[in-house]
């Protein structure tokens, strides 16, 4: 399997960002800059040599806050997307391949979850379990982001279920699970991967929204989502508060998308054969 040049380049960019978020705050700490020291006298300074991303209104170094926020944002995006992929793809594929009543019931479950009042669920989860943990955050975002994935997978598998190569496999007595996961899914993966990458920015914003409701990232900790939300209210006078975390988030999302595009091309059996 070979990734294209674009994808490789993006993989490098993503690696640099992820590494920066991981070790950056440690390095900054060595120079006496941290994300929590509040100094209102030095609040809202534009980017400078001392503070590359400037400071926020409470006088905290924005670069360190963006790096720490990146840890959470990337973790949330990757983990929940993987969770959503695993559940959504299996659910959709099984429903479509089995068909009939099973399909109907499984897809109605998806419908019901779609219609679910998620915000109320969040409020109840917070009050009943008194939890503010990231695990609860992952679980909730994962629980709501696999639904479209399941529907898209189902749509793809429906189209392939009766394809000649599947018929052939069936005739050869290949077990159903093997047909689904080895023969059908690889051919259906394109749109699924595309959707997975689409989900990532949405997941980051969902995370900001849930933090907004009080679940997940608690102040003074921040994530890209919360930094962007915060910055958007200050855009007029202190544009760097939105631009800096926004750029970090945008570049990361862009990189992840082109990596996934490369993955998709590399995984797709048809494009592979065509290229060879």
């Amino acid at each position: 399997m070979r990734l294209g040049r674009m994808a490789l380049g993006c993989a490098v960019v993503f690696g640099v960002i992820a590494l920066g978020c991981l070790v950056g705050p440690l390095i900054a700490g060595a120079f006496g800059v941290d994300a929590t020291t509040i100094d209102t006298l030095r609040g809202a300074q534009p980017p400078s040599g001392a503070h590359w991303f400037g400071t926020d209104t409470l006088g905290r170094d924005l670069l360190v806050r963006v790096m720490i926020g990146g840890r959470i944002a990337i973790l949330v995006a990757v983990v929940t997307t993987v969770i959503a992929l695993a559940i959504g793809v299996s659910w959709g594929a099984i429903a479509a391949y089995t068909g009939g009543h099973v399909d109907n019931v499984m897809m109605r479950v998806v419908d019901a979850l779609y219609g679910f009042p998620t915000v109320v669920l969040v409020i109840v989860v917070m009050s009943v379990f008194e939890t503010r943990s990231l695990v609860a955050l992952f679980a909730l975002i994962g629980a709501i982001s696999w639904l479209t994935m399941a529907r898209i997978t189902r749509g793809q598998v429906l189209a392939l279920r009766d394809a000649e190569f599947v018929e052939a496999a069936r005739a050869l007595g290949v077990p159903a699970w093997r047909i689904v996961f080895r023969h059908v899914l690889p051919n259906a993966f394109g749109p699924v991967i595309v959707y997975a990458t689409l989900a990532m920015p949405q997941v980051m914003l969902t995370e900001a929204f849930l933090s907004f409701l009080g679940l997940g990232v608690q102040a003074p900790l921040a994530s890209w989502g919360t930094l962007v939300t915060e910055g958007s209210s200050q855009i007029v006078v202190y544009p760097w508060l939105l631009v800096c975390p926004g750029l970090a988030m945008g570049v990361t999302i862009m990189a992840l998308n082109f990596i996934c595009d490369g993955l998709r091309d590399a995984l797709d059996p048809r494009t592979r054969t065509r290229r060879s």
Partner: protein
Amino acid sequence: MIRFLLGRLASSLVVIFVVATASFLLLHAAPGGPFATDARRSAAVQHAMEARYGLHDSLWRQYVREIGSLATGDLGHSMKKDVSVNQLIAEHGPTSAVVGLLGLSTAVVFGVLMGVTAAWRKHTWVDYLLMTIALVGISIPSFVMGPLLIAAFAIQLGWLPPARIDGLTSYVLPALALGLIYVGSVARLARGGMLDALGQDFVRTARAKGLPERTVVWKHALRLGITPVVTYLGPATATMISGSFVIEKIFQIPGLGTYFVNSITDRDYPVLTGVFVFYATMLVLLNLVVDLAYGVIDPRTRRR
């Protein structure tokens, strides 16, 4: 076919029932109540207000009352305003639907155009440019995009009103802002679907027959390539036409989306259950339409 439809409708009713029950139970489980927000109210006053809406009955009795009236098509009465939920939907639903449909058209037209072009010109600068635009669109949250549009077209240029629905021109910005949320997703899905479709045997056959590339792409491949878009649009349409909270807030549209959030803040139990039942109904109907559309778009998915 009739059997299939009847089965689907029956199972859809179950879905709506589940959503209604979940909405009811969850909101009742949430701390606080519809009349708890006014901090300084005395216990006697609070009691009198709650009694007015039967909130002292057992949860079970309230539930039976709620579901019972739902079954007759009556979505209940708001506890915060003098209005029934049916009236609310009748009054504010059409506004949301108009804005939603306009947004939907924007998303589909631009998204499909972008996606198909990108797939056609795969791995060229056209592809990268279009997909970068799509990604930027996806990454910009609507609470930044909306004000940007207002700044440009209402404040700077003065062409369109900055808020409220007052005349035809006032639909332009909200529809655009709503459509732009989805246009990136539609473009990326269309590109993905088209890439798959262009690799299919029947497309190669068509090409081999010497049909012009334009016909191959727009007539043959598009039919199949658009499947993921159609799937995605089912729930997305339900969300769009039942109203977006953020868009309605930014542009101050008197639509239905507001109630999906305000009924929660207000703990207005009947309104919450009502609007979610309405949304769930839209959702199952549109997903049914999507499933029927599969058969039309792609004959291979039809049952033997």
